[in-house]
């Protein structure tokens, strides 16, 4: 394995550009994808409540969310398509050899995409053509297929962390067990963590829009429900997510100890390792962090004196960048606990008074919860993907050997960045205008609901 160190011919700048392009397009797609997984469920809840109670507030919420969903899905679909191109355009060394090993989940994902797109077309465009119950039933496959596609695509990523299910002779794949590749050891914690994250991101983001409106004085039933429904879903999942995150960390400790060492900035293997919060890696040690004695051993192995592997166990060329991974991990965990506190606050107040906390600080926290959840999401992926370096397929293929050796990738990156900048601005602008151009009337009536066009 050590001989493969020779670079594939791409310049350092091209390699960096390819990685940044991949990170940019994935990091962009994942936000919209989370909304694509989570929003159909939120919309269905609102539509169902509106159907059962006849409350125009719920019914208008459902329609307005569906309209936003139409835009988000379109953007999600096209930003996902570029990813499938990039898998080959940027990483032919990965796909040319291992494309078949991860082909099965992507084939299944294709089926899920079809289901999603078909029923989305029906759900959005036939809102006024189908009776309410069949219409709601048409929404259920969207939720299932969205969750399934998140599952499938993350199994492919999990395989890159824990490659199993294939035999290789002289760089050629000779036998594959596609199901074993798909259900590799990393699959259960990673997929569970990702799916919960998707619903959290969608819930907190949607809720934060209404928290802002409430801070601006719009406290009518419509805005309250617009906050409560998605917030409740996300808050209920937050403790689950912290538990699943703990599971993911134990998984990493067992299967990718070098990644764990980078996450925690642990350079030397020791017993009773401390947990360091913050700090940057300088000259082979972590400086400026806050140390909690025995913390890491306790968290990673449930034993305050357990031995934790340090970065010194592998050659420097096999270590991931430490500072980025460490700080990203701290950020994710920090946000996770902050959101847990916010959820607990809301739950406590609801239990005591059947109402949300009255202080404006609660709404302010609610208003930033969406951005915070997205930060945790991006930070989590940074931990997973940068922590996997220098391998693109952990222990099997180096990123340098997978990149497209053709010259000029830098220019592709520049072009893609420009397009994404425009796309970001346009998406934000259009979504904002959608809320502004048809304001919600102060006293909602049925006619307001019926005259609001979904598409």
């Amino acid at each position, binding site marked *: 394995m050590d001989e493969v160190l020779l670079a594939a011919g791409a310049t350092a700048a091209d390699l960096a550009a390819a990685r940044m392009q991949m990170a940019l397009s994935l990091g962009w797609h994942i936000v919209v994808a989370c909304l694509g997984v989570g929003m159909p469920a939120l919309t269905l809840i609102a539509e169902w409540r509106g159907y059962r109670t006849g409350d125009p507030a719920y019914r208008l919420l459902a329609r307005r969310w569906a309209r936003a969903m139409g835009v988000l899905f379109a953007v999600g679909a096209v*930003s996902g398509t570029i990813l499938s191109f990039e898998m080959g355009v940027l990483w*032919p060394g990965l796909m040319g050899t291992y494309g078949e090993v991860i082909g099965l989940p992507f084939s299944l994902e294709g089926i899920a995409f079809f289901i999603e797109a078909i029923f989305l077309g029906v759900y959005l465009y036939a809102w006024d053509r189908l009776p309410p119950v069949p219409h709601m039933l048409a929404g259920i496959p969207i939720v299932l297929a969205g969750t399934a596609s998140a599952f499938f695509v993350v199994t492919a990523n999990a395989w890159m962390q824990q490659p199993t299910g294939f035999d290789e002779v002289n760089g050629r794949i000779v036998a594959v067990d596609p199901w074993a590749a798909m259900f590799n050891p990393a699959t259960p914690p990673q997929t569970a963590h990702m799916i919960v994250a998707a619903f959290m991101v969608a819930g907190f983001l949607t809720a934060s829009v209404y928290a802002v409106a409430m801070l601006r004085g719009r406290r009518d039933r419509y805005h309250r429900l617009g906050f409560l429904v998605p917030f409740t879903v996300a808050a209920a999942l937050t403790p689950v997510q912290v538990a699943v995150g703990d599971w993911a960390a134990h998984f990493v400790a067992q299967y990718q100890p070098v990644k764990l060492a980078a996450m925690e900035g642990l350079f030397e293997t020791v017993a009773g390792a401390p947990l360091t919060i913050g700090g940057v890696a300088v000259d082979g040690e972590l400086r400026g962090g806050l140390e909690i004695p025995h913390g890491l051993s306790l968290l990673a192995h449930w034993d305050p004196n357990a031995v934790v592997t340090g970065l010194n166990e592998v050659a420097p060329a096999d270590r991931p960048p430490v500072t980025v991974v460490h700080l990203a991990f701290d950020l994710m965990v920090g946000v996770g606990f902050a959101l847990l506190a916010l959820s607990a606050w809301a739950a406590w107040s609801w239990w005591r008074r059947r109402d949300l906390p009255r202080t404006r600080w609660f709404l302010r926290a609610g208003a930033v919860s969406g951005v915070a959840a997205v930060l945790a999401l991006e930070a989590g992926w940074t931990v997973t993907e940068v922590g996997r370096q220098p391998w693109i397929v952990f222990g099997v293929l180096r990123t340098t050997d997978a990149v497209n050796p053709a010259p000029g990738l830098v220019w592709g990156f520049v072009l893609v960045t420009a*397009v994404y900048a425009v796309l970001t601005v*346009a998406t934000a602008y259009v979504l904002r205008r959608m809320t502004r151009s048809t304001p919600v009337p102060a006293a909602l009536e049925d006619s307001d609901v019926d005259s609001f066009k979904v598409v």
Partner: protein
Amino acid sequence: MALADVMLAVLWLGLTAYVLFGGADFGGGFWDLLAGDARRGAAVRAQVEHSIGPVWEANHVWLIFVIVMLWTGFPSVFAAVASTLYIPLTLVALGIIARGAAFAFRKVSDEPRLRRLFGAAFAFSSVATPFFLGTTAGAIASGRVPPGIAAGDLLGSWLNPTSMTTGVLAVGVTAYLAAVYLTLDARREGATELAEGFRRRATATGVVVGAISVVGLAVLRTDAPALFAELSSWPALPVVGMSVAAGLVSLALLRARAYLAVRISASLAVVGVLWAWAVAQYPVLLPGVTVEAAAATDAVLAASLGALAVGALLLVPSLWWLYRIFQRTAPESSRTVAPPRADTR
């Protein structure tokens, strides 16, 4: 038939579906581009928006399906094509982004200025994207993508006579299919004048695409003689003949205003081109690489094909339901013809 051949056939069926459905959606953008200023073009644009709105995302998935099947079934071919043709493919990807996003944005925007901006982005990328996609087909067909990673000429592979012709042909095909499909959509909704307009466009593009194809054959003869020889002999020749015949029949059907029948014959004409190419090139995928040599292991092929077979049980009825709902006459309420919707309350 070996599993690899089944995989290839499934892949090509997916490509055919993409060309017929997704291609027509691109063509809608072509006619949007040529529809004229905001006032004169309003009816055409509204019809295009109305016809492709509910279905374009599902149609678009065919492309993803083809890409994924290619890297699953023939990984080294995918790597060779994507790495050598990375420039046009990056442009295709960006075109897809611009087009889908702009289409969705325009639909929900009510400011005329914004609608024009997004409309222009949608229409322009609807023409550019099939062009670049077409050049990649020409690159592969003329044997300019060798096996290996980035082994081909990064520019010459797609900047050559065959690729330019296939690029233009791809744009023409999308415009032709769209015009043909839209005639029926417009007539079903009682817009007779609009239907007549699309009929004229369909006839004109039909003639133009036929002419491009003839020019294309001449180009192939000098630029890719091996492929030309295959195309002009058994077993590809009958497929070419079928395509030509279907094209001529379509012109007659358009004259007779048999809009449903012409949908079928026009599709057959296009399918003929695609499958003639496949038959002519089979079993060679890239120079010196056959289907058998490039195929993934049987376990992978069997698992993916099996999954698709099971998936088809879900997909076929769902797709049928989708098209059926929207091919019925639309009720008044969901027919949004007038583009400026500035009814701010």
